């Protein structure tokens, strides 16, 4: 409750700081579907009251199976949420248990049904490959079960064990063995993980999904606009704890008439403070702060990173090339005033030679192999 109030304060404050039409909204991070619907209603009302939201905007909420009631689904619909992303991960309960999820596949099916009945016509289901003990057979079963429900969008991530997660400590021994090329106990090794990832890809495509990004698949025309915004470096305002933003000077409300906003003309990536009590405390002072204040005077900001022109080029490449459609030479030139083939001549030539990248009709994109090895390929675009 208290947090929701703080969040609304930030929404109001940010609406005075930035301007421009909102074409997508994404309510995510944690499980926002746990939030009482009344509060969700308040948040959405605040956004609509203070921002210029496009009537056709894509508005997504993340939900975990079993956390959405009929009533909630109906209210989501009524407050303009038109897309819902369900974190299923697997259609096998033993795999869900290993992941520490509390839902079952049955609960997911019930949630999915509730959402369809409430009228959601754009549903995403998150899946994972490379789970401990996952066989190609089990993975394909998951995909067949889910795609038979015909969700509009499926995200399919390869499991990566990151340091600091409980999963990491549990499977650390295995991870080290894997790095040393030794057989692993439970986690699939590199070749098996590759196999699973590829099987998933082929199965999804066979079920009529188009891959538009390394891990994202959609029925034609149903790609996630918000996601594409990230890959194409559209500006966005993240609000709430730990939220990330990309702010360009052009979308800041000018300080004085006629003066160019942002001063330097460089974009900034901003992360809000992560701790909930600090956030509530700082947000309470927000109203007293001039929305045109210098960035360092905004108390809810934790990290601010100014993107240099080179940094922006790097991002343009390593984000844009994640998409199957890749990037366009023209867009690069528009953004930076330099031809891409001059800036990235060596990297482009090398990756082309290695069969990881192709150019066609003014577009540059990674090949299938290039997408499989995206880490390697994209690192070539860092200066």
């Amino acid at each position, binding site marked *: 409750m208290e947090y929701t109030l703080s969040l609304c304060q930030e929404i109001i404050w940010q609406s005075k700081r930035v301007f421009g039409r909102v074409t997508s909204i*994404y309510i*995510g*991070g944690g499980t926002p579907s746990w939030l009482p619907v009344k509060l969700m209603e308040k948040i959405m009302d605040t956004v609509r009251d203070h921002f210029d939201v496009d009537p056709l905007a894509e508005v997504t909420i993340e939900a975990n199976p079993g956390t959405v009631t009929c009533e909630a689904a109906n209210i989501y619909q009524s407050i303009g949420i038109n897309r819902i992303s369900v974190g299923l991960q697997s259609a096998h309960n033993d795999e869900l248990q290993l992941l520490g999820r509390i839902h079952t596949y049955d609960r997911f099916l019930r949630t999915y049904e509730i959402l369809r009945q409430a009228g959601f016509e754009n549903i995403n289901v998150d899946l994972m490959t490379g789970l401990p003990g996952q066989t190609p057979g089990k993975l394909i079963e998951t995909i067949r079960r889910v795609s038979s429900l015909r969700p509009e969008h499926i*995200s399919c*991530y*390869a499991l*990566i064990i*990151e340091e600091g997660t409980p999963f990491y400590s549990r499977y650390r021994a295995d991870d080290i063995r894997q790095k*040393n*090329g030794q057989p692993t106990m439970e986690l699939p090794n*590199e*070749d098996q*993980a*590759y196999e699973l*990832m590829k099987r998933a890809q082929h199965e999804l495509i066979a079920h009529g999904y188009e891959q538009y990004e*390394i*891990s994202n698949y959609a029925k034609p025309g149903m790609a996630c606009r918000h*996601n594409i915004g*990230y890959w194409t470096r559209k500006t*966005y305002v*993240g609000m709430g704890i*730990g*939220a*990330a*933003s*990309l702010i360009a000077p052009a979308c800041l409300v000018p300080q004085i008439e006629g003066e160019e906003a942002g001063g330097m003309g460089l974009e900034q*990536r901003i*992360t809000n403070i992560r701790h909930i009590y600090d956030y509530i405390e700082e947000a309470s002072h927000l109203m007293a702060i001039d929305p045109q204040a210098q960035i360092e005077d905004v108390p809810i900001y934790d990290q601010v*990173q100014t993107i240099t022109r080179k940094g922006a080029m*790097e*991002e343009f490449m*390593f*984000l844009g090339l994640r998409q199957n459609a890749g990037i366009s030479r023209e867009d690069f030139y528009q953004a930076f005033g330099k031809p891409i083939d001059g800036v990235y001549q060596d990297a482009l030539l090398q990756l082309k030679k*290695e069969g*990881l990248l192709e150019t066609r009709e003014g577009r540059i994109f990674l090949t299938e192999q290039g*997408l*499989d*090895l*995206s*880490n*390697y390929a*994209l*690192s070539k675009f*860092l200066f």
Partner: protein
Amino acid sequence: MAIDRSHIRNFCIVAHIDHGKSTLADRMIEMTNTLTEREMQAQVLDNMELERERGITIKSQAVRLIYTAKDGEEYILNLIDTPGHVDFNYEVSRSLAACDGAILIVDAAQGIEAQTLANVYLALDHDLEVLPVINKVDLPSADPDRVATEIEDVIGLVAEDAPRISAKTGLNVDEVLEQVITKLPAPEGDEKAPLQALVFDSLYDAYKGVIVFCRVKEGTMKAGDKVKMMATGASFDVVEVGYFGAGQFLPCDELTAGMVGYMTASIKNVRDTRVGDTITLANNPCKEPLPGYKKVNPMVYCGLYPADGAKYPDLRDALEKLQLNDAALQFEPETSVALGFGFRCGFLGLLHLDVIQERLEREYDLDLVTTAPGVVYRVHKTDGTMIELTNPSNLPDPSEIEYMEEPMVDAEIMVTSDYIGAIMDLCQERRGEYVSLEYIEEGRALVKYILPLNEIIYDFFDALKSRSRGYASFDYEMRGYQQSKLVKLDILINKETVDALSFIVFEGTAYERARKMCEKLKGNIPRHLFEIPIQAAVGSKIIARETVRAMRKDVLAKCYGGDISRKRKLLEKQKEGKKRMRQVGNVEIPQEAFMSVLKLDDDN
């Protein structure tokens, strides 16, 4: 200033490592008030950080103590601390030659060890009077009676009134000082005779130049004298003479026969003042030099390369600086296709190599890549000439080789009887030739083997310790060369020979080594876009092979709510990793891969 020779004692302390040599030296310094308590730093004589840390003495040190004995007289005690490791055997022998007596420390719990024997025999060879001392009697496991018997039985020294001390607590250390006066002889010599002084060490000082540590056997040396080094032929004008305070040099008027001290003469290079050389007067030389001088030659060679190629000049400067103080360190530039510019360096032994490498890394802040250490092989060619091979890359074509020889050592291993079998197995595996097995007392034996030096320079010490659970001690001495069937093992990565990984190996063990190397490399070379064969070859024959399979999947996880900084970090990490790679052909090899093959036996 006339010093009565009968009131001087020049002595050293010999002991097995960890038996308390430096601790006893410290107590003696403390009890003779040579240093104030504030100046006292634990183990005064080991003044290199590395020496204190490892508990070994690398450079000889000396200190003068003034001791008022029970007879009421004041005595000058010159304590010369000797290096405690077989790598520095020659330095030890020269330090001993500068003394008239020695204190032998034996640990009351552990008894006599291999190094104890080696050192005490060395002392007896130099006709030193040996005063046994039993240390660590305060340990619960101490058995001084047994150790006293052992000293009498094994070495043949009278040990019944050997002081039983605790150097740590200071217990009975006064008795040691007293026996130094009563049992060790005063030096002999004639201060009027032509100068004859033995160089037992030297030290480079940025202000004074080389400081030569010497023992005057005959004659007198003072500032202004024109002196000549009899072996190197260099001559100098003496600027200063003096003696050793604890941690400082104290100038005095002259050094006369029987005294231990130092001299400086604006000498630029330690090479001119070799350990073992004899100093004499240029215009009134002694008839012949003191016996025992020899030029020390490196026994172990390896390539040292800066991890960052740009640091090559820094590495050269650092080696030059270390060489100022260490005449035994040799180096010459070499280049490797894989590692770039570096140096082939020669060392007295593995410990010496280790010490130099660590000093380069610590004191000069250099990150190094080391190639496998090797010994000096003699290659007899069909044309009748012989070359001394220090770098495997220089091995002539097999058709030009008549035969090869490798250096051998006489090894003595002291071990408790439970582990004799395990130790003999180890020596056998290392191509050892059994010589003898003697039981020196109930439950302990001295095992003698002839071993190829190249079999003990890798990991012999570690293997010895692990197979005897730490109950074996080891010492060795060079024996000479012996003909052997040796081959060069080359490593090919993606069909290209990696010169830095080549080494000379005994034909019979080549297969085993080759297999282990390939396995190790496989684990240390990251996957590339293509398959990489790792092969080991002798000549044109491939004897082992592993494959690093092609990389197929390398993807990043999802983007959390537009937070792209994690993605960037991962990509940057990947790119950063590439920078530290060495390029061989189109394969990028991480530095760790070069180092990993130095430790082939870790999993034993």
